């Protein structure tokens, strides 16, 4: 039986890996971050059931780690490919973690002692992490990684505290990147997404007004294991908001920026508003939308429930501008009231911008290495689950924005097709 390579360890990659492994096919699961889990691991709750995201994903992540047919190559990137469907030869760069994974117990002592604080990308840069780190508490594998960009020992030959403190003697500053070669019958691309940072949309003041955030930041702010332990706080005094506005299509459906509809944001904002109201039941939310896209199973009903039970008001408008009150740091939203044909103001304490899902930053590189085509926007070109090259399949947000359900069934479909090459 031959193996399958899966590029990307988010929910799509994980689902494809488990489907294949469960039927006896060996899988290499390559993930560029130190932990699998992808974007879903960083979400708070998931629509339309409001299940805790990591709670339903963690068992699958652990299943991958303990599955005899799955080999996780974390902190690794695909750098070369030759051969053809049925017999691909893949080169994978295993980036040096400077920690011997076979010895590391994931105890966390090194992270406590490490003196170097760096911006924490896993919390949307809201707080800091250490230079030696685990991306999040449920990381799989639970092995520390040294970020060589910041480590004092690696850069300036100072410090070395983590090595001193490590009881397992796992820290190894001499580690180097390694290239491994794999033989696989087929490949599934599941490189996920990146997100839009709306600094260029000046009228909404992102980056300038303290209480304007993107939805990705909000996912961490409302998350119990996020930087604020799930407490919503507003500048300048840390008070909690009573009114939150969500602005849809910020950067998307915009011919000057991202032309596509990001598919999930309407539902994400409804969910986010529900969660805010669940945390504090006097919170009111206002969702400014162009077309409220609630098209999947039980989504429309969910949007109605938001209106009825969670104090959500839907407003059909694209706000023209947001201004900040210098004293309260409250935000004043200017929009056209459709019913009256007048410009109105709405003052809120927090604004969440629904920015689009973008193609993964790895897509361009991966498409060149694998010899597959991208669409006009940089998503992987896919017809169903097939890319433009035989034996290479795609699943999840790498080929278009989609929700977890759609990513999961596309992953199962891709796994089904990838398995066709494993029997010969």
């Amino acid at each position, binding site marked *: 039986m031959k193996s399958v390579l899966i590029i990307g360890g988010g929910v799509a990659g994980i689902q494809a890996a488990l489907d294949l492994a469960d039927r006896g096919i060996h899988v290499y699961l390559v993930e560029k971050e130190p932990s699998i889990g992808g974007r879903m691991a960083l979400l708070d709750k998931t629509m339309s059931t409001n299940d805790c995201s990591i709670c339903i994903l963690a*068992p*699958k992540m652990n*299943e991958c780690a303990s599955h005899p047919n799955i080999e996780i190559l974390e902190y690794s990137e695909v750098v070369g490919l030759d051969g053809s469907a049925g017999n691909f030869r893949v080169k994978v760069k295993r980036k040096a973690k400077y920690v011997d994974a076979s010895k590391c117990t994931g105890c966390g002592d090194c992270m406590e002692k490490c003196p170097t604080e760096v911006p924490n990308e896993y919390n949307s840069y809201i707080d800091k992490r250490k230079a030696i780190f685990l991306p999040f508490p449920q990381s799989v594998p639970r092995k520390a990684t040294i970020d060589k960009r910041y480590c004092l020992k690696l850069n300036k030959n100072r410090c070395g505290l983590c090595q001193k403190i490590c009881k397992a003697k796992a820290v190894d500053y001499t580690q180097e990147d390694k290239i491994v070669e794999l033989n696989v019958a087929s490949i599934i691309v599941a490189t996920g997404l990146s997100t839009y940072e709306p600094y260029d949309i000046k009228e909404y003041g992102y980056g300038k007004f303290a209480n304007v955030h993107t939805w990705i930041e909000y996912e961490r702010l409302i998350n119990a294991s996020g930087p604020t332990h799930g407490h919503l706080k507003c500048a300048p005094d840390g008070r909690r908001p009573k009114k939150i506005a969500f602005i849809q299509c910020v950067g998307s459906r915009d011919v000057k920026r991202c032309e596509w509809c990001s598919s999930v944001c309407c539902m994400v904002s409804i969910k986010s508003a529900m969660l805010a109201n669940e945390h504090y039941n006097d919170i009111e939310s206002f969702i400014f939308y162009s077309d409220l896209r609630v098209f999947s199973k039980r989504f429309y009903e969910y949007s109605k429930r938001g209106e009825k039970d969670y104090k959500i008001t839907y407003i059909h408008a694209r706000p023209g501008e947001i201004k900040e009150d210098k004293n309260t740091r409250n935000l004043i939203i200017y929009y056209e009231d459709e019913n009256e044909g007048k410009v109105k103001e709405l003052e809120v304490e927090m604004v969440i911008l629904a920015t689009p899902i973008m193609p993964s930053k790895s897509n361009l590189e991966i498409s060149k290495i694998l010899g597959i085509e991208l669409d006009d926007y940089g998503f992987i070109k896919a017809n169903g689950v097939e890319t433009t090259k035989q034996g290479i399949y795609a699943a999840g947000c790498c080929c278009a924005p989609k929700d977890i359900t759609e990513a999961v069934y596309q992953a199962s479909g891709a796994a089904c097709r990838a398995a066709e090459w494993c029997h010969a």
Partner: protein
Amino acid sequence: MPRIGVFVCDCGTNIAGFLDVPAVCEYAKILPDVVYVKENMYTCSNAGLQEIMNAIKEHKLDRVVVASCTPRTHEPLFRKACEMAGLNKFLFEFVNIRDQCSWVHQKEREKATEKAKDLVRMGVAKARLLEPLEEIKIPVERACLIIGGGISGLTAAAALAKQGIEVHLVEKDEKLGGILNDIYKVYPEDEPASKILDELINEVKKYRINVYLSSEVEKVDGYIGNFSVKIKGKTNKEIKVGTIIVAIGAKPYQPMYMYNYQEYENIITQIELEKMLKEGKIKGKDFIFIQCVGGRGERVRYCSRICCMNSIKNARIIKKMIPDSNVYIVHKGLQTYGVKYEEYTRKAREEGVRFIRVADSIPTVSSIEGKNGKIVVGFYHPGLRRKIELQGDLVILSTPLVASEDARKISQMLKVPLGLDGFFFEAHVKLRPVDFATDGIYMCGSCRAPASIEEAKIQAMAAAGRALIPMANGFVKVEPYTPYIDEEKCRACGMCVEVCPYGAMRIVEKNGRRVAENISAACKGCGACSSSCIHKAIDMRHFRDGQIIAEIEVID
């Protein structure tokens, strides 16, 4: 004496935020036979699992209790940890202190803490009496029944046949293709539906697929790996399969007594338009598409997902056929999600299709009447803030897809659930979107929820892939929650045979006596036999009377 380890989970703040976890831990320490107690921030994390495994070895634990979120997602994980540490995985007991405690008592910290203690005490009481069990391995027939020969069923059939599975495809119509037979072109590539269908049917013909046209599934017995299926109709046959895929599709809603549909000939439904387009019978100058007729709260509650794109597709086709036509789409918010559909809509706009958005209140239009051979459609325009009227030579009502009339019958036959909307209900909305909760049965396409052709095909491949797991392995393991039958006490009265909903009980002769026997592969462990046995001869493994009574007895 048992040696029990208790692990109490904070679940981040999901549990620890609403009850006093350290107090629950302290309390667990004084319970009988508990030799080890540990609080974890996330017991399900790699570190948490490692702690369970280490504790089993270090403290010679022979029973493990985890008090945490829910067994639905996490029981298999903790059991596996036990197994990896050398402990029989059925010596594990789950105590649910999140879904059934911290989440429902978010404002009663003290009471929630007391309840968590009670739940842990009960779990420990049961754990003391747990017995090691072995999973049952049952063989799986490498054959699949697909119900429905539309785009989903055909795609699944081809995917399975390609991988050496014997496929039985049952279609109640006299030809394959389902709703695609009635459609002119398919978005977003605007390929003729007939071309897509021909290609797929040719592919299916290449493989050894048993196609039963004008036939229906009459009866299904058995369980994963071993279903016996009775087909009746043009073909009458009994077959054995290992798995079943349900792909019966959906049908467009007929808008009877709505929007004057039956009053005027030139008010038609989308599917009637498809037929006209196919036959090239389209004429006129003004065309009005009305969205959400019967959908989004009018007759059914849900949004039918595909109708906006379908209207835009047909609007573009008409615009191409009759370049000087006026084509309007009156909608309540276009559902043209994603990359391709948004692009498609933009093209339609560039080509001159006019979109008019009305408020999401009911109904889409306020008047629709015939006048001099034309249809006058009136509605409130939110941008202009007044009622406006459009005249159409043809008005097309875009109605939702609704569940097939066979859905209920099939749900009863296969003992699988339907949702409130009449579509089949999946095992987990997000993580198991094409599985039924019943092992070995899967779904795809519009019988799950309205789906585009591309989505239906992806789901079909997914369902095929999921069904291939047990079939490729050739076996499946099932939980051993089967009845233990005390043959001394059994009087062969047959009550258990009668109550068993799965046909898993039978009366056999053993050593010259008639006694009840369980067919473990068919058994779902529901316990109906046990609770109905008047001679108390049946006891469920893992849910023994003694174990349950022990749990109840420790409640004050």
